[in-house]
């Protein structure tokens, strides 16, 4: 009843090409952005900001990067964490070696470095596809982490290999409270998400999807396959690089090659698959799912233990609780993939379709 587009007529192509063509959506998104910027920093406590919201945002950005490559352009990659590592180390070294570089510029340059590296490791995509390409991008994952450990120059000859990042400075002001870091991260993520949406609804995005859906037909239309694939790798790695820099600066506070293992690449791939391939919103939903569900499960097993403790004077053994969390988490992933193989984003869309009719059956 409330959510329907009846009466909203489009009289120009410009109006028809808006990101959110339905008025209710626009209002909801503006409200969400307002809450995220103006309400959350005041309301959320330190734990929520630095242990939940900041990582969700950063992982969303990384998932968005991978989604551009895998979901939109159809090139499977397992090198996401490596491209994040390039971004993180590039940011660290730029900050260290070039004095007075402003933070936004550091992030952009870190992204550009990652984009260049990503484009190089995207070269095999010109010859191979699918699972074989995924294996080729594994090379990026192992090679980059190896190189960062092997050459101490990258970590400024630090003996432990774990380096503390410099303070984040924006316009001469140090960002040290979680709320400030959160606002900075949110701004970067929001701007990059908007840019991604714009690219994906433009000829760039259509060329990516054309290459994904049928490369021969794309070539015949005049889409240059090589350029398009490498551009997809570069743009995707740019997003991953910026995410990696934020991961090191705004979340961990340290940079180390071991923070960017294959495990992280897989986590981000799962975010994309669960959130929804080829969907900007899906990247956010997937990241939130993968970060929040384990925390939720942890809280609920602790609560369950508390109940058992007080009621039966007995609690689950520690080894069981941690494995139980993993089992339920795995089960949930399988459940969601069976219910909606196209991810949470599609589930959301189906929900909106239903909402258009609600409360009537037809």
């Amino acid at each position, binding site marked *: 009843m409330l959510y329907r587009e009846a009466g909203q007529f489009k009289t120009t192509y410009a109006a028809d090409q808006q990101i959110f063509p339905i008025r209710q959506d626009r209002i909801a998104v503006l409200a969400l952005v307002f809450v995220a910027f103006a309400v959350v920093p005041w309301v959320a406590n330190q734990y929520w900001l630095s242990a939940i919201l900041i990582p969700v945002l950063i992982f969303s950005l990384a998932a968005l990067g991978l989604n551009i490559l895998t979901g939109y352009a159809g090139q499977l990659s397992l090198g996401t964490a490596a491209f994040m590592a390039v971004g993180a180390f590039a940011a660290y070294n730029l900050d260290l070696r070039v004095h007075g570089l402003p933070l936004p510029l550091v992030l952009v340059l870190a992204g550009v470095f990652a984009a260049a590296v990503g484009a190089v490791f995207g070269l095999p995509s010109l010859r191979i596809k699918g699972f074989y390409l995924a294996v080729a991008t594994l090379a990026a994952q192992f090679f980059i982490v190896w190189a960062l450990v092997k050459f101490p120059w990258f970590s400024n000859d630090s003996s432990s290999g774990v380096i503390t990042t410099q303070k984040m400075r924006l316009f001469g002001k140090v960002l040290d409270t979680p709320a400030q870091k959160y606002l900075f991260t949110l701004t970067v993520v929001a701007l990059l998400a908007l840019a991604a949406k714009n690219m994906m609804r433009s000829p760039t995005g259509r060329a990516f999807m054309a290459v994904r*859906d049928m490369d021969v037909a794309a070539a015949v*239309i*005049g889409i240059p396959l090589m350029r398009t694939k490498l551009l997809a790798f570069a743009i995707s790695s740019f997003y991953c690089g910026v995410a990696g820099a934020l991961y090191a600066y705004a979340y961990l506070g340290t940079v180390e090659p071991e923070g960017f293992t294959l495990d992280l690449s897989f986590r981000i791939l799962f975010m994309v698959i669960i959130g929804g391939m080829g969907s900007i919103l899906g990247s956010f939903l997937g990241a939130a799912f993968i970060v929040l569900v384990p925390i939720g499960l942890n809280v609920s097993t602790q609560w369950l233990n508390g109940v058992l403790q007080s009621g039966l004077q007995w609690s689950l053994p520690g080894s069981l609780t941690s494995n139980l969390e993993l089992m339920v988490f795995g089960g949930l992933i399988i459940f969601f993939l069976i219910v909606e193989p196209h991810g949470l984003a599609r589930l959301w869309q189906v929900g909106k379709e239903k909402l258009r009719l609600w409360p009537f059956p037809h």
Partner: protein
Amino acid sequence: MGERRIGDVVLALEHVSLAFGGVKALTDISFDVREHEVRAIIGPNGAGKSSMLNVINGVYRPQQGTITFRGEPRRGMDPHAAAAMGIARTFQNIALFRGMTVLDNVMTGRNLKIRTSFLEHAIWWGRARREELDNRRKVEEVIDFLEIQHIRKTPVGRLPYGLQKRVELARALAAEPELLLLDEPMAGMNVEEKQDMCRFVLDVNEQYGTTIVLIEHDMGVVMDISDRVVVLDYGRKIGDGTPGDVRGNQAVIDAYLGVAH
């Protein structure tokens, strides 16, 4: 509707031969296509018709022979160069982008007209948006022309076969081609859909002046709409001329009906 003026030769193939390993797909084929005409390529299955189209738009490179398009002789094309020169095509088994809507599919046809970079796309406001709107206007003309307005926002995977064929034609037309290659545009259609498609092909030819090369199995269609016909059999040209000439050609009759040995 005025009389179509058939002009000079726009595309000429001379002594083209194509082989895959030991298999000869095309042997020493020469023919030409004149401006504004509808040129049909016919022949039994496996005669090399699709290979012929693939040679024209650069998917395959012939081992021998030259292709002259608009006076420019070349040994072979690559698909991108062919598209840039104004050659568009449709495929025998539909080659649409299944994950995209009809509108997006047709918009990809405008790809070669894009002058803005991905950075401008990211910012959206300004040049990129103006260009997008211009292209949308052009694409909507094609959508109107082919009468697919009602399915604009539908993902192509959900459409019936006949409509998918029409969307593919729309995507090719969106590029404003000079030469349009149609690989069995009416295959698998019922009579009504075939009639629609014939009308669209003729309308394209008349209104936009597009030169059309088409492969078709339905002899009735071929005889009705084409100006000249090339007949292939086992990779060789066995006939060439107006539909009337070809119909009376003994070699063609033998190829289609078989000969007593």
